[in-house]
Protein backbone atom coordinates (compact mmCIF):
# COMPACT_ATOMS: atom_id res chain seq x y z
CA UNK A 1 0.00 0.00 0.00
CA UNK A 2 2.98 2.31 0.43
CA UNK A 3 3.94 3.50 -3.04
CA UNK A 4 7.52 4.26 -2.23
CA UNK A 5 9.78 3.96 0.79
CA UNK A 6 12.87 6.15 0.90
CA UNK A 7 15.21 7.63 3.48
CA UNK A 8 14.78 11.14 4.82
CA UNK A 9 18.27 11.86 6.02
CA UNK A 10 19.95 9.06 7.97
CA UNK A 11 17.49 8.78 10.84
CA UNK A 12 14.04 8.71 9.24
CA UNK A 13 12.01 6.74 6.74
CA UNK A 14 9.78 8.55 4.26
CA UNK A 15 6.68 6.59 3.25
CA UNK A 16 4.90 7.96 0.21
CA UNK A 17 1.26 6.91 -0.20
CA UNK A 18 0.59 9.03 -3.29
CA UNK A 19 0.22 12.64 -4.27
CA UNK A 20 -3.52 13.19 -3.91
CA UNK A 21 -5.19 14.35 -0.73
CA UNK A 22 -8.27 12.34 0.10
CA UNK A 23 -9.75 10.31 2.92
CA UNK A 24 -8.96 6.95 1.32
CA UNK A 25 -5.23 7.63 1.13
CA UNK A 26 -5.19 9.35 4.50
CA UNK A 27 -6.94 6.38 6.12
CA UNK A 28 -4.17 4.11 4.83
CA UNK A 29 -1.57 6.45 6.34
CA UNK A 30 -3.40 6.39 9.68
CA UNK A 31 -3.70 2.61 9.57
CA UNK A 32 0.06 2.24 9.17
CA UNK A 33 0.62 4.86 11.84
CA UNK A 34 -1.60 3.01 14.33
CA UNK A 35 -0.11 -0.40 13.59
CA UNK A 36 3.49 0.81 13.93
CA UNK A 37 2.65 2.67 17.10
CA UNK A 38 1.06 -0.45 18.57
CA UNK A 39 3.97 -2.69 17.52
CA UNK A 40 6.33 -0.48 19.52
CA UNK A 41 9.43 -1.28 17.45
CA UNK A 42 12.80 -0.92 19.16
CA UNK A 43 14.51 2.26 17.98
CA UNK A 44 11.50 3.95 16.36
CA UNK A 45 11.07 7.13 18.35
CA UNK A 46 8.52 9.21 16.40
CA UNK A 47 5.85 8.97 13.74
CA UNK A 48 4.37 11.81 11.70
CA UNK A 49 1.34 10.91 9.66
CA UNK A 50 0.18 13.60 7.22
CA UNK A 51 -2.26 13.75 4.27
CA UNK A 52 -0.47 11.19 2.15
CA UNK A 53 2.91 10.61 3.78
CA UNK A 54 4.18 8.94 6.92
CA UNK A 55 7.55 9.83 8.35
CA UNK A 56 9.12 7.39 10.78
CA UNK A 57 11.99 8.72 12.87
CA UNK A 58 14.38 6.40 14.60
CA UNK A 59 17.38 6.38 16.88
CA UNK A 60 20.37 5.69 14.69
CA UNK A 61 22.11 4.08 17.68
CA UNK A 62 19.43 1.42 17.85
CA UNK A 63 18.23 0.74 14.33
CA UNK A 64 18.74 1.83 10.72
CA UNK A 65 16.89 2.74 7.54
CA UNK A 66 17.43 -0.78 6.21
CA UNK A 67 15.95 -2.44 9.28
CA UNK A 68 12.91 -0.17 9.45
CA UNK A 69 12.31 -0.54 5.72
CA UNK A 70 12.49 -4.30 6.05
CA UNK A 71 9.99 -4.18 8.90
CA UNK A 72 7.61 -2.05 6.81
CA UNK A 73 7.81 -4.40 3.85
CA UNK A 74 6.77 -7.29 6.04
CA UNK A 75 4.33 -5.49 8.28
CA UNK A 76 1.17 -7.27 9.28
CA UNK A 77 -1.55 -4.65 9.05
CA UNK A 78 -4.56 -5.50 11.09
CA UNK A 79 -7.49 -5.12 8.74
CA UNK A 80 -9.96 -5.00 11.56
CA UNK A 81 -8.14 -2.09 13.08
CA UNK A 82 -10.75 0.61 13.07
CA UNK A 83 -9.91 4.22 13.48
CA UNK A 84 -11.40 5.12 16.79
CA UNK A 85 -12.92 8.41 15.77
CA UNK A 86 -15.09 11.01 17.46
CA UNK A 87 -17.54 13.58 16.17
CA UNK A 88 -16.98 17.01 17.68
CA UNK A 89 -18.79 20.32 17.63
CA UNK A 90 -16.52 23.32 17.78
CA UNK A 91 -18.05 26.69 18.69
CA UNK A 92 -16.69 29.51 16.57
CA UNK A 93 -17.33 33.23 16.75
CA UNK A 94 -17.01 35.03 13.42
CA UNK A 95 -17.51 38.53 14.78
CA UNK A 96 -15.45 41.15 12.92
CA UNK A 97 -13.24 41.30 16.00
CA UNK A 98 -11.95 37.84 15.05
CA UNK A 99 -12.48 37.40 11.31
CA UNK A 100 -9.37 39.32 10.33
CA UNK A 101 -9.29 38.11 6.75
CA UNK A 102 -12.98 38.21 5.87
CA UNK A 103 -12.51 41.13 3.44
CA UNK A 104 -9.68 39.31 1.71
CA UNK A 105 -11.74 36.13 1.49
CA UNK A 106 -14.73 38.03 0.09
CA UNK A 107 -12.49 39.41 -2.64
CA UNK A 108 -10.68 36.20 -3.50
CA UNK A 109 -13.69 33.91 -3.34
CA UNK A 110 -16.09 36.48 -4.78
CA UNK A 111 -18.62 35.54 -2.15
CA UNK A 112 -20.34 37.66 0.50
CA UNK A 113 -19.56 37.22 4.19
CA UNK A 114 -22.97 35.57 4.70
CA UNK A 115 -22.33 33.12 1.89
CA UNK A 116 -18.84 32.25 3.16
CA UNK A 117 -20.18 31.52 6.65
CA UNK A 118 -23.10 29.56 5.28
CA UNK A 119 -20.73 27.40 3.28
CA UNK A 120 -18.28 26.98 6.15
CA UNK A 121 -20.53 26.32 9.15
CA UNK A 122 -22.63 23.26 10.00
CA UNK A 123 -20.69 21.01 7.68
CA UNK A 124 -18.61 17.94 8.52
CA UNK A 125 -14.84 18.15 8.23
CA UNK A 126 -12.42 15.27 8.49
CA UNK A 127 -9.23 15.63 10.55
CA UNK A 128 -6.36 14.49 8.33
CA UNK A 129 -3.55 15.22 10.73
CA UNK A 130 -2.42 17.30 13.68
CA UNK A 131 0.79 19.22 14.07
CA UNK A 132 2.92 22.09 12.83
CA UNK A 133 2.25 23.55 16.26
CA UNK A 134 1.10 21.25 19.05
CA UNK A 135 -2.44 20.01 18.52
CA UNK A 136 -3.26 22.03 15.40
CA UNK A 137 -5.83 20.03 13.40
CA UNK A 138 -5.82 20.04 9.59
CA UNK A 139 -9.47 19.69 8.58
CA UNK A 140 -10.92 19.06 5.14
CA UNK A 141 -12.39 19.44 2.71
CA UNK A 142 -13.67 22.91 1.95
CA UNK A 143 -15.92 23.32 -1.09
CA UNK A 144 -14.14 24.08 -4.35
CA UNK A 145 -15.29 27.70 -4.33
CA UNK A 146 -14.08 28.25 -0.74
CA UNK A 147 -10.40 27.69 -1.47
CA UNK A 148 -7.95 30.56 -1.04
CA UNK A 149 -4.17 30.68 -0.99
CA UNK A 150 -2.10 31.56 2.07
CA UNK A 151 -1.38 35.23 2.79
CA UNK A 152 1.59 36.51 0.77
CA UNK A 153 3.25 37.62 3.98
CA UNK A 154 2.44 35.46 6.99
CA UNK A 155 1.40 37.16 10.22
CA UNK A 156 4.02 37.23 12.94
CA UNK A 157 1.32 36.52 15.51
CA UNK A 158 -1.95 34.72 14.92
CA UNK A 159 -4.15 34.81 18.04
CA UNK A 160 -4.82 31.61 19.94
CA UNK A 161 -8.08 29.94 18.90
CA UNK A 162 -8.09 31.41 15.39
CA UNK A 163 -10.04 29.33 12.89
CA UNK A 164 -8.44 29.78 9.50
CA UNK A 165 -8.63 28.57 5.91
CA UNK A 166 -6.15 27.72 3.17
CA UNK A 167 -6.77 25.74 0.01
CA UNK A 168 -9.07 22.83 0.83
CA UNK A 169 -8.40 22.94 4.57
CA UNK A 170 -9.42 24.64 7.78
CA UNK A 171 -7.31 24.68 10.91
CA UNK A 172 -7.30 26.03 14.44
CA UNK A 173 -4.31 27.82 15.98
CA UNK A 174 -3.95 26.07 19.32
CA UNK A 175 -1.84 28.89 20.72
CA UNK A 176 -0.45 32.20 19.52
CA UNK A 177 1.94 31.50 16.71
CA UNK A 178 3.17 32.90 13.41
CA UNK A 179 0.98 31.82 10.50
CA UNK A 180 -0.24 32.58 7.01
CA UNK A 181 -3.75 31.15 6.88
CA UNK A 182 -6.88 33.25 6.22
CA UNK A 183 -8.53 33.92 9.57
CA UNK A 184 -12.30 33.55 9.64
CA UNK A 185 -13.16 33.32 13.34
CA UNK A 186 -12.10 32.22 16.78
CA UNK A 187 -13.04 29.40 19.14
CA UNK A 188 -13.06 29.79 22.93
CA UNK A 189 -12.31 26.06 23.32
CA UNK A 190 -8.88 24.81 24.35
CA UNK A 191 -7.90 22.59 21.44
CA UNK A 192 -4.57 21.66 23.00
CA UNK A 193 -3.95 21.19 26.71
CA UNK A 194 -0.45 20.10 27.69
CA UNK A 195 -1.54 19.35 31.26
CA UNK A 196 -3.44 16.32 29.91
CA UNK A 197 -0.44 14.21 29.01
CA UNK A 198 -2.42 11.20 27.84
CA UNK A 199 -4.86 13.21 25.73
CA UNK A 200 -3.51 16.69 25.02
CA UNK A 201 -5.35 17.04 21.69
CA UNK A 202 -9.09 17.66 21.56
CA UNK A 203 -9.16 16.76 17.86
CA UNK A 204 -7.25 13.76 16.51
CA UNK A 205 -6.66 12.34 13.03
CA UNK A 206 -9.78 10.53 11.81
CA UNK A 207 -12.19 12.67 13.90
CA UNK A 208 -15.08 14.59 12.39
CA UNK A 209 -15.54 18.25 13.24
CA UNK A 210 -18.52 20.56 12.77
CA UNK A 211 -18.20 24.31 13.35
CA UNK A 212 -21.20 25.92 15.11
CA UNK A 213 -21.47 29.67 15.16
CA UNK A 214 -21.70 31.54 18.48
CA UNK A 215 -22.22 35.24 19.12
CA UNK A 216 -19.65 37.54 20.65
CA UNK A 217 -21.59 37.49 23.94
CA UNK A 218 -21.67 33.71 23.98
CA UNK A 219 -17.94 33.73 23.20
CA UNK A 220 -17.16 36.07 26.08
CA UNK A 221 -19.21 33.99 28.51
CA UNK A 222 -18.09 30.65 27.14
CA UNK A 223 -15.48 29.78 29.70
CA UNK A 224 -17.64 30.83 32.62
CA UNK A 225 -19.88 27.78 32.30
Amino acid at each position, binding site marked *: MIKNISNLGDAAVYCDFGSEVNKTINSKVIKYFKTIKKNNIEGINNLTPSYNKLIISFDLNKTSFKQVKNYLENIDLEDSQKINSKKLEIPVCCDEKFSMDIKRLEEILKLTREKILEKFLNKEYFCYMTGFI*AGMPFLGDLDENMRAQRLETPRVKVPKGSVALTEQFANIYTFESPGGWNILGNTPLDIFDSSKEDKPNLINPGDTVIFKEITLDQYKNYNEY
Partner: protein
Amino acid sequence: MSINYLDIIRPGINTTFQDKGRDHLYHIGIPFSGAMDNRNYLIANKLVSNHLDSAVIEFAYQGPQIKYSGEKINFAITGDVIFSIKKKDTEIEGKCYESYQIENGDEINIISTNKSVYGYLALGGEFDLKFQWNSCSINTKASIGSNDGKKLDVGQRINLKKINSNKDIKKTNYINTKIENIRVIKGTNFDYFSEEGKKIFYEKEFTVSKLTDRMGMRLEGPKIDNIVNTNIKSEGLIKGVIQVPADGNPIIMLSDHGTIGGYPKIGVVASVDYDRLVQMSPGSKVKFKEINLSDAETLFKLYEMETQNLLSQI
Protein backbone atom coordinates in the same frame (compact mmCIF):
# COMPACT_ATOMS: atom_id res chain seq x y z
CA MET B 1 11.66 24.49 51.73
CA SER B 2 14.76 23.52 49.91
CA ILE B 3 18.03 24.46 51.52
CA ASN B 4 19.99 24.29 48.29
CA TYR B 5 19.02 26.66 45.56
CA LEU B 6 20.10 29.06 42.81
CA ASP B 7 18.99 32.64 42.42
CA ILE B 8 19.02 34.07 38.92
CA ILE B 9 20.65 37.48 39.08
CA ARG B 10 20.76 37.84 35.30
CA PRO B 11 18.97 35.31 33.13
CA GLY B 12 20.92 35.67 29.89
CA ILE B 13 19.30 35.76 26.48
CA ASN B 14 17.90 32.30 25.95
CA THR B 15 18.40 30.24 29.06
CA THR B 16 16.37 27.07 29.50
CA PHE B 17 16.43 23.70 31.21
CA GLN B 18 17.15 20.90 28.80
CA ASP B 19 17.63 17.17 28.99
CA LYS B 20 17.41 14.37 26.43
CA GLY B 21 14.08 15.71 25.15
CA ARG B 22 10.77 13.95 24.55
CA ASP B 23 9.88 11.46 21.84
CA HIS B 24 6.78 9.75 20.40
CA LEU B 25 4.92 13.07 20.14
CA TYR B 26 5.50 14.28 16.57
CA HIS B 27 2.01 13.09 15.61
CA ILE B 28 0.41 15.56 17.99
CA GLY B 29 2.71 18.37 16.99
CA ILE B 30 5.41 18.26 19.65
CA PRO B 31 9.08 18.09 18.61
CA PHE B 32 11.96 16.41 20.43
CA SER B 33 13.42 19.58 21.97
CA GLY B 34 16.25 18.61 24.36
CA ALA B 35 19.81 19.92 24.48
CA MET B 36 20.81 21.32 21.09
CA ASP B 37 24.40 20.09 21.28
CA ASN B 38 24.01 16.59 22.63
CA ARG B 39 27.70 15.83 23.08
CA ASN B 40 28.37 18.89 25.20
CA TYR B 41 25.23 18.16 27.22
CA LEU B 42 26.42 14.64 28.06
CA ILE B 43 29.95 15.77 28.95
CA ALA B 44 28.57 18.43 31.31
CA ASN B 45 26.62 15.82 33.23
CA LYS B 46 29.54 13.41 33.35
CA LEU B 47 31.87 16.07 34.76
CA VAL B 48 29.65 16.48 37.83
CA SER B 49 28.89 12.75 38.30
CA ASN B 50 25.25 13.07 37.22
CA HIS B 51 23.20 10.55 35.33
CA LEU B 52 23.84 11.36 31.70
CA ASP B 53 20.18 12.21 31.07
CA SER B 54 19.92 14.77 33.90
CA ALA B 55 18.62 18.27 33.32
CA VAL B 56 21.14 21.02 32.71
CA ILE B 57 20.89 24.74 32.11
CA GLU B 58 21.36 25.54 28.42
CA PHE B 59 22.23 29.10 27.44
CA ALA B 60 22.85 30.83 24.14
CA TYR B 61 25.27 33.74 23.55
CA GLN B 62 25.05 35.57 26.88
CA GLY B 63 24.56 33.17 29.77
CA PRO B 64 23.07 33.63 33.22
CA GLN B 65 24.60 35.04 36.37
CA ILE B 66 23.69 32.81 39.27
CA LYS B 67 24.06 32.99 43.02
CA TYR B 68 24.22 29.69 44.87
CA SER B 69 22.97 29.04 48.39
CA GLY B 70 23.37 25.80 50.26
CA GLU B 71 25.79 22.94 50.90
CA LYS B 72 28.90 22.46 48.81
CA ILE B 73 28.17 21.37 45.25
CA ASN B 74 30.11 20.80 42.02
CA PHE B 75 29.36 22.43 38.73
CA ALA B 76 30.82 22.30 35.23
CA ILE B 77 30.36 24.28 32.06
CA THR B 78 30.82 22.86 28.57
CA GLY B 79 30.95 24.47 25.17
CA ASP B 80 33.19 27.37 24.27
CA VAL B 81 32.25 29.69 27.10
CA ILE B 82 33.73 32.64 28.96
CA PHE B 83 32.74 32.64 32.62
CA SER B 84 33.93 33.53 36.07
CA ILE B 85 33.42 32.21 39.58
CA LYS B 86 32.97 34.76 42.33
CA LYS B 87 33.86 33.62 45.83
CA LYS B 88 33.87 35.63 49.04
CA ASP B 89 36.86 37.78 48.22
CA THR B 90 38.11 36.52 44.88
CA GLU B 91 36.88 36.21 41.36
CA ILE B 92 38.53 33.63 39.14
CA GLU B 93 38.19 32.96 35.46
CA GLY B 94 36.61 29.59 34.85
CA LYS B 95 37.61 26.92 32.36
CA CYS B 96 35.22 24.79 30.41
CA TYR B 97 35.39 21.00 30.76
CA GLU B 98 36.47 21.16 34.40
CA SER B 99 34.33 20.77 37.46
CA TYR B 100 34.54 23.28 40.30
CA GLN B 101 33.21 23.21 43.80
CA ILE B 102 31.14 26.13 45.03
CA GLU B 103 29.60 26.88 48.40
CA ASN B 104 27.01 29.10 50.02
CA GLY B 105 27.12 32.62 48.59
CA ASP B 106 29.31 31.86 45.55
CA GLU B 107 28.33 33.17 42.15
CA ILE B 108 28.77 31.85 38.61
CA ASN B 109 28.83 34.54 35.97
CA ILE B 110 28.50 33.19 32.43
CA ILE B 111 29.58 36.10 30.30
CA SER B 112 29.18 34.67 26.83
CA THR B 113 29.77 31.86 24.42
CA ASN B 114 32.79 32.40 22.22
CA LYS B 115 32.27 32.15 18.42
CA SER B 116 29.59 29.57 19.12
CA VAL B 117 25.99 29.56 20.27
CA TYR B 118 25.18 27.08 23.05
CA GLY B 119 26.80 26.28 26.36
CA TYR B 120 25.77 24.00 29.22
CA LEU B 121 25.84 24.42 32.97
CA ALA B 122 25.48 21.20 34.95
CA LEU B 123 25.24 21.06 38.72
CA GLY B 124 26.17 17.91 40.60
CA GLY B 125 22.70 17.08 41.81
CA GLU B 126 19.11 17.21 40.72
CA PHE B 127 17.04 20.30 40.03
CA ASP B 128 13.50 20.30 41.34
CA LEU B 129 11.64 20.51 38.03
CA LYS B 130 8.33 19.61 36.50
CA PHE B 131 8.42 16.89 33.88
CA GLN B 132 6.08 16.72 30.93
CA TRP B 133 6.12 13.57 28.85
CA ASN B 134 9.19 12.33 30.74
CA SER B 135 11.25 15.41 30.01
CA CYS B 136 11.81 18.74 31.67
CA SER B 137 13.08 20.31 28.41
CA ILE B 138 11.57 23.73 27.92
CA ASN B 139 9.84 24.33 24.60
CA THR B 140 9.02 28.04 24.79
CA LYS B 141 6.98 27.97 21.62
CA ALA B 142 4.45 25.48 22.95
CA SER B 143 4.94 26.46 26.62
CA ILE B 144 5.83 22.89 27.45
CA GLY B 145 8.22 21.54 30.07
CA SER B 146 9.63 22.83 33.33
CA ASN B 147 9.38 26.48 34.40
CA ASP B 148 5.92 26.62 32.71
CA GLY B 149 7.68 26.26 29.37
CA LYS B 150 9.32 29.68 29.72
CA LYS B 151 12.90 30.89 29.61
CA LEU B 152 14.57 31.51 32.96
CA ASP B 153 13.88 34.99 34.25
CA VAL B 154 15.56 37.48 36.54
CA GLY B 155 14.89 37.00 40.26
CA GLN B 156 13.84 33.40 39.89
CA ARG B 157 14.80 30.82 42.49
CA ILE B 158 15.56 27.27 41.39
CA ASN B 159 15.60 24.58 44.02
CA LEU B 160 17.75 21.49 44.06
CA LYS B 161 16.16 18.24 45.18
CA LYS B 162 19.44 16.55 45.92
CA ILE B 163 23.20 16.99 45.79
CA ASN B 164 25.53 14.24 44.62
CA SER B 165 27.68 12.72 47.32
CA ASN B 166 30.44 12.16 44.77
CA LYS B 167 32.25 15.49 44.71
CA ASP B 168 35.39 14.43 42.82
CA ILE B 169 36.85 17.18 40.70
CA LYS B 170 36.95 16.02 37.09
CA LYS B 171 38.28 17.37 33.87
CA THR B 172 38.74 16.52 30.24
CA ASN B 173 40.74 18.09 27.47
CA TYR B 174 37.96 18.16 24.94
CA ILE B 175 38.13 20.90 22.32
CA ASN B 176 35.10 21.75 20.20
CA THR B 177 35.98 21.26 16.58
CA LYS B 178 34.64 23.53 13.91
CA ILE B 179 33.73 22.10 10.56
CA GLU B 180 33.91 23.84 7.25
CA ASN B 181 31.33 21.74 5.49
CA ILE B 182 27.99 20.53 6.75
CA ARG B 183 27.36 17.11 5.31
CA VAL B 184 23.90 16.52 3.92
CA ILE B 185 21.89 13.73 2.40
CA LYS B 186 19.77 14.53 -0.65
CA GLY B 187 16.22 15.50 0.31
CA THR B 188 12.95 14.05 -0.95
CA ASN B 189 12.26 17.11 -3.16
CA PHE B 190 15.78 17.56 -4.49
CA ASP B 191 14.48 17.44 -8.06
CA TYR B 192 12.20 20.43 -7.47
CA PHE B 193 15.24 22.64 -7.97
CA SER B 194 16.89 23.79 -11.17
CA GLU B 195 20.28 22.39 -12.18
CA GLU B 196 21.70 25.79 -11.35
CA GLY B 197 19.92 25.73 -7.97
CA LYS B 198 21.32 22.30 -7.09
CA LYS B 199 24.81 23.51 -8.02
CA ILE B 200 24.42 26.58 -5.86
CA PHE B 201 23.30 24.41 -2.94
CA TYR B 202 26.43 22.27 -3.02
CA GLU B 203 29.00 24.74 -4.24
CA LYS B 204 28.21 28.17 -2.85
CA GLU B 205 28.66 29.58 0.60
CA PHE B 206 25.69 30.55 2.77
CA THR B 207 25.62 32.81 5.80
CA VAL B 208 23.80 31.96 9.02
CA SER B 209 21.28 34.77 9.53
CA LYS B 210 20.22 36.43 12.76
CA LEU B 211 16.82 34.78 12.42
CA THR B 212 18.15 31.64 14.02
CA ASP B 213 16.94 30.05 17.23
CA ARG B 214 16.13 26.66 18.74
CA MET B 215 13.42 26.17 16.11
CA GLY B 216 15.37 26.79 12.99
CA MET B 217 18.38 28.26 11.28
CA ARG B 218 17.79 30.61 8.37
CA LEU B 219 20.50 30.98 5.80
CA GLU B 220 21.20 33.76 3.36
CA GLY B 221 23.12 33.58 0.13
CA PRO B 222 22.56 32.97 -3.55
CA LYS B 223 18.93 32.04 -4.22
CA ILE B 224 18.05 28.43 -4.95
CA ASP B 225 15.66 28.36 -7.86
CA ASN B 226 12.63 26.07 -7.73
CA ILE B 227 11.31 24.82 -11.09
CA VAL B 228 8.48 22.54 -9.97
CA ASN B 229 6.45 24.01 -7.11
CA THR B 230 7.42 26.22 -4.20
CA ASN B 231 4.89 24.42 -1.97
CA ILE B 232 4.29 20.76 -1.29
CA LYS B 233 1.31 19.18 0.48
CA SER B 234 2.15 19.64 4.16
CA GLU B 235 3.99 16.68 5.59
CA GLY B 236 6.19 15.73 8.52
CA LEU B 237 9.54 17.30 9.32
CA ILE B 238 12.51 16.08 11.29
CA LYS B 239 15.38 18.00 12.76
CA GLY B 240 18.07 18.70 10.19
CA VAL B 241 15.66 18.99 7.26
CA ILE B 242 16.62 21.84 4.92
CA GLN B 243 13.53 23.44 3.41
CA VAL B 244 13.64 26.03 0.66
CA PRO B 245 10.59 28.32 0.54
CA ALA B 246 9.64 30.49 -2.42
CA ASP B 247 12.24 33.17 -1.60
CA GLY B 248 15.03 30.67 -2.33
CA ASN B 249 16.71 30.95 1.09
CA PRO B 250 17.23 27.64 2.93
CA ILE B 251 15.87 27.07 6.44
CA ILE B 252 17.25 24.22 8.56
CA MET B 253 14.89 22.67 11.09
CA LEU B 254 16.37 22.53 14.59
CA SER B 255 15.29 20.79 17.82
CA ASP B 256 12.13 22.86 18.56
CA HIS B 257 10.92 22.85 14.93
CA GLY B 258 7.29 22.80 13.79
CA THR B 259 6.39 19.18 13.14
CA ILE B 260 4.71 19.75 9.77
CA GLY B 261 5.85 21.88 6.87
CA GLY B 262 4.89 22.65 3.31
CA TYR B 263 8.13 23.72 1.69
CA PRO B 264 10.24 21.45 -0.53
CA LYS B 265 13.05 19.57 1.20
CA ILE B 266 16.33 19.96 -0.65
CA GLY B 267 18.42 18.03 1.86
CA VAL B 268 18.81 16.73 5.39
CA VAL B 269 21.82 17.40 7.61
CA ALA B 270 23.63 14.17 8.45
CA SER B 271 23.21 13.29 12.16
CA VAL B 272 26.99 13.34 12.61
CA ASP B 273 27.10 17.09 11.97
CA TYR B 274 24.07 18.21 13.96
CA ASP B 275 25.89 19.13 17.20
CA ARG B 276 28.36 21.26 15.30
CA LEU B 277 25.74 22.79 13.01
CA VAL B 278 23.76 24.25 15.92
CA GLN B 279 26.91 25.92 17.25
CA MET B 280 27.28 28.08 14.13
CA SER B 281 26.49 31.63 15.16
CA PRO B 282 24.89 34.29 12.95
CA GLY B 283 27.39 35.52 10.38
CA SER B 284 29.14 32.12 10.11
CA LYS B 285 29.69 30.76 6.64
CA VAL B 286 28.23 27.37 5.76
CA LYS B 287 28.89 25.10 2.81
CA PHE B 288 27.04 21.87 2.15
CA LYS B 289 28.65 18.67 1.04
CA GLU B 290 26.65 15.73 -0.23
CA ILE B 291 27.19 12.29 1.27
CA ASN B 292 25.27 9.08 0.79
CA LEU B 293 23.24 7.22 3.40
CA SER B 294 25.78 4.53 4.15
CA ASP B 295 28.60 7.07 4.66
CA ALA B 296 26.31 9.09 6.91
CA GLU B 297 25.57 6.01 9.00
CA THR B 298 29.24 5.11 9.32
CA LEU B 299 30.26 8.66 10.20
CA PHE B 300 27.57 8.83 12.86
CA LYS B 301 28.72 5.54 14.42
CA LEU B 302 32.28 6.89 14.58
CA TYR B 303 31.05 10.14 16.11
CA GLU B 304 29.07 8.22 18.73
CA MET B 305 32.06 6.02 19.54
CA GLU B 306 34.13 9.14 19.99
CA THR B 307 31.48 10.58 22.33
CA GLN B 308 31.39 7.36 24.36
CA ASN B 309 35.19 7.38 24.53
CA LEU B 310 35.25 10.94 25.76
CA LEU B 311 32.69 10.12 28.41
CA SER B 312 34.45 6.99 29.57
CA GLN B 313 37.67 8.96 30.12
CA ILE B 314 36.00 11.38 32.52
